[in-house]
């Protein structure tokens, strides 16, 4: 999946990846790849501005950590981020259920004998 396909859903996806716990930028990207079975393949560099945007909106908070000898910026969900994720999830479920139904081939009209 390219960036254009994901447009509009990247925020929700990033929040979902952070739901289990705090992660730094590259770990977020790896989790995206693993959780999507390799389907999501964004340029890694574009994930960082998106994380900064979520931070500005108060949905995630970031702090520098020096674990393992390398300074990394670690992101975690805020309470508002959790709520936004819940909303995103239920909106997506309703939307995808409706579109799935609409895209299914119509059953052919069976003529009764």
């Amino acid at each position, binding site marked *: 999946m390219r960036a254009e396909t994901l447009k509009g859903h990247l925020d929700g996806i990033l929040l979902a990846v952070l739901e289990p716990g705090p992660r730094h*930028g590259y770990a977020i990207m790896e989790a995206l790849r693993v959780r999507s079975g390799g389907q999501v393949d964004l340029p890694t560099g574009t994930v960082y*501005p998106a994380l900064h945007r979520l931070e500005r909106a108060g949905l995630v908070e970031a702090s520098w950590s020096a674990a393992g000898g390398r300074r990394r910026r670690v992101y975690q969900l805020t309470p*508002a981020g959790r709520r936004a994720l819940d909303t995103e999830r239920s909106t997506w479920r309703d939307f995808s259920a409706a579109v799935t139904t609409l895209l299914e081939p119509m059953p052919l009209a069976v003529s009764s004998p």
Partner: protein
Amino acid sequence: MSADSQPGAGDVPVDGYLAEVTARLPGPARARAGIVAELRSGLLDATDAHRSAGLPPAEAALAAIAEFGDPAQVSAGFRAEIAASQARRVAVSLLVTGPLVGLLWIATAAASHLRAGPVLGGHWAAPFPGMGVGIYLVAAAAGVTAWGALAGIAATGRLTRWLPVRPQRAPTAAAVAGYGAVCADGLGLVLLAAGLATVPGKLALLPAAAAGAASLVRLLLAGRAARRCLTLRASLA
């Protein structure tokens, strides 16, 4: 960027990539430094991942760079963030300093009136012609400043959770606020100069000097901030 596979040669392409990203980033060096540090640690993590997958160091670094994508695209994403955070900072400082400078002017007026004597009767006679109009203009400029600053804050904060905001909006609003402050403070200084020229004896000099100095500093800083916001806005196009 060379593809030689000398061990430890990974730093050279990583630094080159980071230089390409930063060359396109405007704004203060401090904001850039944080972004570069974060991208660098990400690139080193990616290099480690490719090395664990079996690539030699230099090739691992090149693979990490390829994975991070076009530096132009990365810096475009960060330009919007830099513009937003700078615009927010400008808007907040204008919103905070406005009332403080305003209070100094009000104190000046109050102190001068006390010295001027009988203005308590309700008939307010302007000490010099045009002062009434001038005060209205200052109030209008202060209103524009407050409106622009609030719009800039709204376009960069929590509201963006629900409202999609074009990245140009915040620097535009902050620039409007900045030029509004330039007008308000400039008019205040003009009124002060007019007062000094026409009725020098009536002015309480100490508060007038404080208010004038505060407005002059704010005028200069607001003008510079507004110009910067317009530059940031242009960098988003």
